């Protein structure tokens, strides 16, 4: 068959696959939304009381609850909430009175950038370290690489963050301590956030690559006289990527939800801190919208990972189709 037709067929397949998966998302999200809605209202604590403070009378509190619709049966509240969502209205924050959508705008953008920066450098550096460690197993590069990896995993993010601030901002004065105004503001947080993931990717790459390097087809490739520069990246590394991509995808999903610790250390306006603040205030509309968004993000990331699998390993594709 002509290669172009093959590519077109491949694209059509991927599109169909994506469409099917997106359709499958709908019932999942519906169930997730019900669970989220119900459980949030089960947490003890009254948002009205938390907002008004101790010197409001109980009549005032109950009147405000009535106005906010918090006295309606939970099912009615859910229905009116879903009605809003379908019309693109996520409601207003109980605490600030701002539309939830507006509160998300900037934070969402910031969190996406931060996640991308962190994951990209972690992925690239992690694979390089992992590959060197595997190729030079138990030699100096391996030891250095794994030492880096162990430090990356064991150093707490907030500590690393504070050390980075102390060194690069206070001592050297090169980078700002916090905020999200320019690309400079993203450097330190993405280092602090990506360090652990880089380490994880390095370790996964190493163990997975070691396994592959011992397999028959690598021996065959080497026996054919192929140079290591070809064998390692083309044959071995690619076949070791499935587990690495899986772990990267999972981490990507987690990071999109924001990192409370790193956001706090760098006064970074992202999603994580918003969630914590909203939970503390029982700001139902904001919590619901955030959790729904996180679910969607996770499902989408999973979808991307699944598609990547099929490129990495034709076997998986055959089975799934």
């Amino acid at each position, binding site marked *: 068959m002509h290669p172009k037709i093959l*590519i077109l067929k491949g694209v059509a397949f991927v599109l169909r696959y994506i469409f099917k998966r997106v359709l499958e998302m709908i019932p999942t999200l519906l169930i997730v939304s019900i669970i989220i809605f119900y459980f949030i209202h089960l947490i003890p604590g*009254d948002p009205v009381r938390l907002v008004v403070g101790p*010197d409001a009378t109980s009549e005032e509190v109950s009147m405000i609850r009535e106005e906010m619709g918090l006295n309606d049966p939970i099912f009615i509240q859910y229905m009116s909430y879903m009605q809003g969502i379908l019309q693109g209205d996520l409601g207003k924050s109980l605490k600030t009175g701002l539309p939830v959508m507006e509160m998300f705008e900037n934070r969402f953008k910031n969190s996406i950038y931060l996640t991308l920066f962190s994951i990209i450098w972690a992925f690239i550096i992690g694979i390089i370290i992992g590959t060197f460690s595997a190729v030079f197993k138990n030699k100096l590069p391996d030891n250095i690489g794994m030492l880096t990896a162990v430090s990356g995993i064991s150093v707490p993010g907030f500590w690393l963050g504070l050390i980075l601030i102390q060194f690069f901002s206070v001592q050297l004065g090169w980078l700002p301590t916090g905020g999200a105004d320019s690309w400079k503001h993203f450097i330190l947080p993405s280092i602090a956030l990506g360090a652990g993931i880089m380490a994880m990717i390095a370790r996964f790459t190493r163990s997975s690559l070691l396994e592959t390097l011992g397999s028959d087809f690598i021996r065959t490739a080497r026996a054919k006289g192929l140079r290591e520069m070809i064998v390692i990246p083309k044959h071995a590394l690619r076949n070791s990527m499935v587990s690495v991509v899986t772990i990267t995808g999972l981490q990507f999903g987690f990071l999109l939800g924001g990192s409370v610790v790193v956001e706090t250390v760098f006064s970074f306006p992202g999603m994580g801190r918003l969630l914590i603040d909203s939970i503390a205030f029982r700001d139902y509309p904001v919590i619901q919208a955030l959790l729904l968004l996180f679910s969607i993000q996770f499902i989408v990331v999973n979808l991307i990972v699944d598609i990547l699998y099929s490129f990495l390993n034709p076997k998986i594709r055959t089975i799934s189709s």
Partner: protein
Amino acid sequence: MIKGNGIKLLFVLFLSMLIVACSTEGSVESDPEDNSSDKGSNDNVVIEDEGNKRDEIVIAVNENFITMDPHNSGDRNSNAVQGAMLEGLIDERDGEIVPVLAEDFEVNDDATEFTFYLREGVVFHDGQPFNAEAVKANFERITGDQSLRLYSRGFNDITDIDVIDEYTIKITLSQSNSSMLTKIVPARMISPKALKEEDLTRNPVGTGPYKFVEWVPGDHLTVELNENYWNQGQAKVQKITYRPVPENGARVAMLKTGEADFIFPVPTQNLAELEEDENIIVETNQSTIARYVSLNTMKEPFNDVRVRQALNYAIDKDAFINVVMAGFATPLDSVLPSTIFNYQQQELYQYNIERAKELLAEAGYENGFTAEIWGNTNSDTVRGMQFIQQQLSQIGVELEVLSMEEGTLSERIYGGHGPEEAEVEMWYVSWGGFPSDTDHAIRPILGGNSFPPAGGNSAYFSNPEVDQWLFEANATVDAELKRELYGKVQQKIYEEAPWIFLASDENLFGRRADLEGVYVTPNGRIHVGYAEIK
């Protein structure tokens, strides 16, 4: 073939991710709305150009701003920023009421009629004139808009708002309330046009020394100098950017690098390193915060006044201040902190284990008892509770420390149960208010009508005499009589000891040495009205 394409596609995917990442850098920088986008690069210039005069400052605070609607907010950070842009008829300084947009005011003898004579020639930031009609529109919003009930309940007694002439307005109450003036302080004036047209949570249009520029929630809020300010020449700094920086270490680092010119609060553990730096000045003042442990006076053994006094004698206040408050507090020697108007010092419950044991024995608890102490999960609170646990163990009182997440704690205290069913025994908590509002510093937390959930009286303390004195004091404008009545109230409450009286906090704030005129008021509001770089 397919294999090759797969790799290529993967590669393309990655490249595109990289491109997206790179292009976002550009778009963040060139975002036309982002006025502060060049600040990142300016930050470091600040350090180098120490000699040159700056005209912009950055203020870092520990929490996010909630709303810019002055009639619907009570948190100190939102209030502080609003204070730069909006002004009220009156303000308070050192516990005294001082005129601002009103040049003068009168209160009738039974504190039911308040007449304000307004300043002439003042305009709002949008060019609207400030006059009696504008004031009326604001008060009508506060009393009439149902959605503001959370914070406007202090205005429930207002029956009439009359415009006497263009610059005179009279407010009439249904009952006497001499603390109404303090309630009017935070009722800041918004342009009547903005009241009708603008989203007030986001866009405050007032008469203050600074005008609103932009607010990116969670990131920063910027204001600039108002060229047409009626009181020209007070504030000199051109532009102020407020940033919420919750992490203590990061806030301190910002002050050290010059990224921030003013931070509040200064964490006590970083005090030493800041004091070493000659470019930084750390200042303190007494706050209006009273820190105490409420004792449920309806429950055994706290229903016996001797037990309550014994607990007070058993705590070493100086040690408490040093261990828990890092030395930045003063012993609470009345129900009121010394910054609250009409404060009168009482004779402190001096640390005396023997006296405490005697009192416990008299009350029939010579072997002590066990109880629960509640508090939130804040690490300072936990440290405070553990300190009290240790101190009381000396007199045989064994405490179980229960630190609860704020929402849960609030539910257990205000959950709608009657006083008899209340579970709370001891609650480690604090209360803060306006220096000029003596009533608010006592009645909502110790008044007989303020049992949870109607108020914060978690001690379930009810003393008819105290209630009567509080009522009388609030109904008179006679300063002498007020002082006398509040004196009796303080004496009685200190004697009855519904709390373990611990300490009153100090505010700790830091500034770059060349910044002057910015300070923190006793009730924790950052004041920028005289900001100037020297």
